[in-house]
């Protein structure tokens, strides 16, 4: 089974919850973790991974380059670039900003001087694998700064994870997705059997999780909700009301707990570092419900 964790808003606790669930589920199931936030990968850190046993460059992103020598400075490329990535530098030359280029090659197609603008394949990041100290493997990725197509890195991660699952005969893939609702999240949710949404009781988190839920609905996947930092905004019922209206089962509520940032500093899941904390107790109950209601 493939289980994806998403939230829309960043920083509401996706990786904290994912690391804790992995910790509770590892003894009963054959698991593989996928950190699908290639622009800010943190799950490996939370699981104490400091050594990647295998690392592969992901080549695939393309960026345009302008050969200044043959450029006639007609400016058509700059005019036609859909994303405004071509500019004139201090010396008066047309250059592509490689940190924003999407690699569509429109500039190359409209350039009247053959061979002046070329589309070059560049490394967009790395995909890597480690075995955590808990015994289960993790696949992670890191996009190089300013590169496009982080979603493709996530797709490659999941393909690698599937191969590892076959090799090691593992049952479940747990995917910790990125913030937002774009390509990385779509690649994370696509093909999942169920989605667990994480939100905190604030208007911003509610707005973002509603957007993430609409993406889940595109894929027609069953969704569940975990309310994190459940006590930071007493009196706010919007999140729970929404879940009830949509018929999204609430797996549990985790209180705000100062032990969470402390556990991060120890590079351990909170449930291992501070098993008696209020948050850990709540997470343990949630893990039990996931065993019963989702993983079976």
């Amino acid at each position: 089974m493939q289980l994806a964790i998403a939230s829309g808003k960043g920083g509401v606790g996706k990786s904290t919850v994912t690391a804790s669930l992995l910790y509770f589920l590892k003894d009963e199931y054959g698991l593989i973790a996928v950190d699908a936030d290639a622009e800010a990968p943190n799950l490996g850190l939370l699981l104490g991974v400091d050594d990647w046993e295998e690392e592969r460059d992901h080549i695939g992103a393309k960026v345009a380059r302008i050969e200044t020598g043959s450029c006639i400075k007609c400016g058509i490329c700059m005019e036609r670039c859909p994303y405004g990535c071509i500019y004139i530098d201090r010396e008066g030359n047309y250059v592509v900003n490689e940190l924003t280029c999407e690699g569509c090659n429109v500039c190359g197609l409209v350039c009247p001087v053959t061979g002046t603008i070329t589309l070059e394949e560049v490394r967009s990041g790395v995909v890597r694998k480690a075995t955590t100290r808990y015994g289960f493997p993790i696949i992670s990725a890191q996009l190089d700064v300013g590169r496009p197509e982080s979603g493709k890195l996530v797709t490659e991660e999941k393909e690698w994870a599937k191969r590892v699952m076959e090799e090691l005969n593992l049952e479940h893939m747990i995917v910790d997705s990125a913030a937002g609702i774009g390509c990385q999240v779509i690649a994370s949710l696509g093909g999942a059997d169920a989605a667990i949404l994480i939100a905190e009781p604030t208007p911003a988190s509610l707005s973002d999780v509603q957007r993430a839920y609409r993406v889940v609905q595109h894929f027609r996947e069953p969704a569940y909700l975990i309310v994190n930092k459940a006590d930071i905004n007493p009196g706010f019922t919007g999140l729970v009301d929404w879940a009830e209206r949509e018929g999204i089962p609430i797996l549990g509520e985790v209180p705000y707990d100062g032990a969470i940032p402390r556990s991060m500093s120890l590079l351990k899941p909170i449930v291992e570092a501070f098993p008696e904390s209020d948050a850990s107790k709540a997470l343990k109950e949630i893990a039990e419900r996931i065993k019963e209601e989702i993983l079976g």
Partner: protein
Amino acid sequence: MQIAVSGGKGGTGKSTVAINLAVALNNLGIDLTFADLDVEAPNDHLLLGVELGSEEPVMQFMPKFDYSKCTKCRKCAEVCEEHAIITLKDGTPFLMPNLCSGCRACEIVCPVPGAIQEAFRVIGHTYVTETPYGFTLVTGKLKEGEERSMPLVVAAKRKAQELQEGILFVDTAAGTGNTVSKAVEFSNLLIAVTEPTPLGIHDTELILELGNLMEMPTWVVINRSDLGEKERVYELADKYGAEVVAEIPYSENIVRSYVEGKPVVLTEYPEARIFKGLAKKVLEFLGGGE
């Protein structure tokens, strides 16, 4: 003049810092236009306690094939970097709309006039909101199910530039990919908001790297500065030639004003002073830059 607030990791407090700094700057008499370019999860209007204002769809080009004119030469499919055009055995092209980036490469290479016609789809919206704080907020919002945030970041940023009065003040998404660099591009100052956890620190390094690559002066604000090892943030800032300009301890007052949609800088809470101080520092920076 353009200032961008970013941070790498999600939830470090980018939007909290951005809206409070914008309000404080405005109170110092600085004109600005605020662009919320976190198009996948735009929240600044909620933090400012305003309803989104006038809505405009962002239309994206997609090819519409006129099969009576198409010669089935397959050039459109070959040139599509997104592989959004597939062809049947006889060369008849079909579009998979969700993959199309709207770049028009297919239209450019099509040898038959009129075989590719213009069609459009709505990929999201921009909103222009007059806030009670004295500045205009431009928000970009990607439609759910759309994969590409780049065209929406570009559209929302252009809209904000059209309306720009004074400083263009940008709040970005989490992450460090090219949509964040597009939002940050052409800033005179990048403010990276982080938290001193190993996760925050890891991602801060990425955003500082982006600041260096884009050759822009970069400041660091340490949020929840008492929840972790802030010394490590100072070391990192040093390494990248960035300056740590503010520390914000974890504060329930900030959480409260966040959920109530009232900028904390306008309250009597002690935290207001931090943002006022930061605004003064920006003012000095602006004065020095001219």
